[in-house]
């Protein structure tokens, strides 16, 4: 590979590989490889605050079996997890704990808000002194799953959507539009 004469990119914006002819192809393939690995081994945190957690367990059990999509390794510590499923309502006493758990997950990290309570406070939106009106007041959410509780199929659909989102990521070309 010789040094490229193309000047349409700012040299400092890209890794050194991109300056060579064919370098971007390698980067694209690397992205595809890394995203393939990441999207098929998203490990959720064992975290359930209310009845949606029961549905989450059902998704983990044999009938629905989230292992088909690489989500089966629910970790009991955020340091080994990639993703947090907020399955249930978050109250004001729980909110700092949720924030700390999210901060302890290593990047890249993803959040699924499962059920009406995690999306918006749900049935506890009005006249409740204790429930946070949506978990996105505390941490950023990637996928919202409506339902009270959502069917296991809905959570599986959210898993697939999250995989699509992960597969679109550009890990090596930081300044390209994602």
């Amino acid at each position, binding site marked *: 590979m010789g040094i490229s004469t193309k000047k349409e990119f700012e040299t400092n914006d890209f890794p050194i590989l991109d300056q060579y002819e064919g370098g971007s192809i390698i980067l694209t393939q690397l992205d595809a490889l890394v995203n393939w690995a990441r999207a098929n081994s998203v490990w959720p945190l064992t975290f359930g605050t209310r009845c949606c957690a029961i549905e989450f367990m059902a998704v983990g059990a044999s009938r629905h079996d989230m292992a088909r999509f690489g989500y089966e390794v629910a970790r009991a510590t955020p340091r080994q997890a990639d993703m947090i499923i907020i399955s249930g309502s978050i109250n*004001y*006493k729980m909110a700092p704990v949720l924030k700390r758990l999210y901060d302890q997950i290593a990047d890249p990290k993803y959040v699924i808000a499962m059920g009406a309570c995690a999306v918006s406070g749900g049935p506890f*939106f*009005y*006249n*409740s*002194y*204790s429930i946070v*009106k949506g978990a996105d007041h505390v941490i950023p959410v990637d996928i919202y799953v409506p339902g009270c509780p959502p069917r296991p199929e809905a959570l599986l659909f959210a898993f697939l959507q999250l995989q699509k989102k992960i597969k679109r990521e550009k890990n090596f070309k930081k300044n390209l539009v994602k």
Partner: protein
Amino acid sequence: MTNEQLSAYLSARFPDVEIKQGVQYLEITVPAVNLHDVARHLKDTAELAFDYLVCLSGVDYPEYISVVYHLESTKHSHFLVMKVKTKDRQDSSIDTVCDVWPTAEFHEREVYDLLGVKFNNHPDLRRLFLDENWGFPLRKDYVDEVHIVAR
């Protein structure tokens, strides 16, 4: 004992107690000053033997706060509902029944936490769920401009 026998027994033993037949259970309303004596008698008398405090709950009424005790006897399989009214909503204090039924300790802490009923002689009357500076959120006149979206 049947509800009728219980009613006859209690009205003879405690003249101050109001007795009313509810939908399912016999309901007695005890003056706050007699609460501890009545509770001790219900537990320790052999033919009553209410040894199981099923539930202890608080109710917010406009004039006063009521505490309701659901009692069962595992020996005789009879059931009784005992109600106590506090003096008013500001000065809401009644005696504890912790020493009679030890399970009441946490139940009374919860009622104190959410409704602000003070239980005299309670060994450890701290907040159970909420922070110290929180109000009593299950009272009807509780307001919280920050957290509550009112409707």
